[in-house]
């Protein structure tokens, strides 16, 4: 055993993959502590934070005022502004024959945006971006607090429009290191919690499948005959189907949820353990030390658990490691297809799926970072499994 440990320690890749895997495990365990926010707490989310790029500060949104402005014969009237608001008045002044300046008082208020809505046809706002569909124009951070409405032809005598004024938000000091998604979730936190879900799903599913598979594998190996045939046919059957299809079918039937994903993965994976355990156990049962144990009249349970099982474990542990990786991958694929986890508790796969839509609008961070993390995690675990397997196989290790 210690020889094994020494070989392992000699391989830098193996040690690195182990360390990375452990780091992910720690992330998963301590996600609530490390993560700057709790992405699953709906009451903490605010839509104003949605789709913020990397390293943007979290802000308390500025005050928003909606005021209907009516300009008739050069005089502007507007509804009363609520008391206590920063903005004291809305102004609308003609700035020539074909133009009107809409502004706020006092003029030194820091504005984030001034939006003009519902202008009659033929009018537009200078230097503003028009909403692709809706009839409104937004002037982002107007320099002197004014938006200029211009007409192509003659300026109508009566104009009524809705002005939406947003005062500049103030920063809270919190920074979204990896940006936010469309719900205003801090991506860093979401990724950490996503790791948590992935790791939980991976460990619980692979672990339960392992216990189940080992049990059935040992049973098949010991009993032989019909029991063996039934178990192994079931294994063949399961192995004959791609994991993804089985998962899809199970979730299509049961609906989504962490527990169901775990169940689906267990359904898929137990067979790998059963097959491996059985084949190793069969090989071990054929070895003379088992015959020795039989001549020493040790009980079957004792032989299986104390003698055979420990000899199956190295291979099973390799399988366990690789299966954690495939469980994580499977979960993310199912989530991507929309049959995995609930929306409010996104795993990495779902974060990526959510971000997929934004890729065309250059909002790469939503799916890129979770993707990288997911890839790193699976690679690390797979690499670990690879090394363990190589060490078990003297041919492949050198």
């Amino acid at each position, binding site marked *: 055993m210690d020889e094994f440990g020494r070989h392992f320690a000699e391989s830098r890749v193996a040690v690195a993959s182990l360390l990375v895997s452990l780091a992910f495990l720690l992330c998963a365990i301590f996600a609530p502590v490390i993560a700057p926010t709790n992405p699953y707490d709906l009451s903490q989310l605010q839509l104003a934070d949605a789709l913020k790029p990397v390293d943007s500060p979290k802000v308390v949104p500025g005050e928003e005022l909606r005021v209907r402005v009516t300009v008739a014969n050069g005089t502007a009237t507007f509804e009363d502004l609520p008391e206590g608001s920063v903005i004291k008045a809305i102004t609308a002044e003609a700035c020539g024959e074909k133009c009107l300046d809409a502004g706020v008082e006092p003029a030194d208020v820091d504005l984030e945006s001034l939006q003009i809505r519902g202008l009659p046809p033929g009018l537009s706002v200078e230097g503003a971006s028009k909403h692709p569909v809706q009839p409104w124009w937004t002037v982002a951070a107007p320099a002197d607090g004014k938006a200029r409405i211009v007409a192509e032809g003659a300026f109508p005598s009566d104009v009524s429009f809705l002005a939406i004024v947003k005062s500049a938000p103030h920063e809270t000091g919190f920074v979204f290191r990896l940006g936010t998604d469309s719900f205003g979730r801090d991506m860093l936190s979401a990724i950490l919690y996503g790791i948590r879900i992935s790791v939980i799903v991976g460990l619980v599913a692979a672990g339960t499948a392992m216990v189940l598979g080992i049990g059935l594998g040992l049973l098949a190996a010991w009993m032989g005959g019909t029991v063996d045939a039934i178990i192994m046919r079931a294994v063949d059957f399961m192995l004959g189907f791609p994991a993804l299809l089985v998962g899809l079918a199970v979730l299509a039937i049961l609906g989504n949820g962490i527990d169901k994903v775990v169940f689906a993965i267990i359904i898929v994976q137990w067979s790998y353990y059963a097959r491996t355990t059985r084949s190793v156990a069969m090989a071990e049962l054929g070895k003379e030390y088992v015959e020795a144990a039989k001549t020493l009249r*040790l009980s079957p349970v004792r032989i299986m658990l104390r*003698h055979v099982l420990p000899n199956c474990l190295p291979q099973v542990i390799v399988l366990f490691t690789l299966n954690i990786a495939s469980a994580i991958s499977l979960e993310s694929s199912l989530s991507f297809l929309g049959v995995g986890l609930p929306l409010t508790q996104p795993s990495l796969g779902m974060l990526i799926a959510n971000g997929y839509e934004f890729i065309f609008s250059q909002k790469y961070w939503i799916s890129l970072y979770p993707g990288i993390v997911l890839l790193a995690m699976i690679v690390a675990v797979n690499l670990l499994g690879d090394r363990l397997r190589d060490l078990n196989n003297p041919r492949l290790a050198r």
Partner: protein
Amino acid sequence: MQQTILEVQDLSRSFRSGRDPLRRLADWLSGIEPPVVRAVENVTLSISPGETLGVVGESGCGKSTLARMIAGILPISSGRMRFRGEPYESLLSRKRDALKIQMVFQDPLSSLNPRLKVRDIIGEAAVVHGIVPRSKIRDYVADLLARVGLPPEAAGRYPHQFSGGQRQRVGIARALAVNPEILICDEAVAALDVSVQAQVINLFMDIKRDRGLTMVFISHDLGVIRHLCDRVAVMYLGRVVELAKTEDLFAAPTHPYTRMLLEGMPRISLKRREFLPIQGEIPSPLAPPSGCHFHPRCPIATQQCRQVRPELREMAPGHVHRCLNAVAS
């Protein structure tokens, strides 16, 4: 010498392949009768206390199967076995007494569980069966180790930390730990280098003398058999073809197969040997020849040998063989 400690009568083992129920159904539907392999056929032996019986034969002759049936690992298909006159079944039902027959195996590596320390390998059964209280196990194991010529600190090591010969010693200590009366050695020295083989053979002779153990020594190596055994049974394709005292057998083999074996046996000599062509191959146990299994290779076979299955005949007192045409040489 008169009383027998182990009596084996008409012992047979046959098995058919394909235990899978679906396969059986398919076989039945397609009208296939799965072939039956007769690994051991009507073997009758009796062993006296303190005696060492050698069983010799080539691969596929059923000697290992026989050993495992005697050791109670493999179920028997037919026949009877008695230990000190008592039917085997009742012996096996009493756990402690079932330990009276122990076995030493061929492969010194695979016969030891690589995940257990030597102390557990040797001591486990003794503790489980209450032969030794758990508290005394250290001394008990140390004592056994000393007996097989290993240092006491060996108890804390794992099998892979030993050489082949040392591992075989551990295997012997394990068998001795439950105080057996019969020790079955299945090719126990075959995998060892010559120099180490000698060590282990010496050890067997020591413990046999010290404990008065009865031994069944299974080997393909006639030299080892001749050195160790009082009597020898020669097996061919599941049947015992000749059984005699060692000196009688080596001096005057009667069965043509035994002769062939002895001729083929290499020995150290200064003479360049004239190798003679020996005919035929060993047939597959799946489809043994009819009549006398040996007839296709036998230089003295007659038409009768093809059809008649020869029974054991006594040539001289204690010297039996299974040949229709043999004469004492």
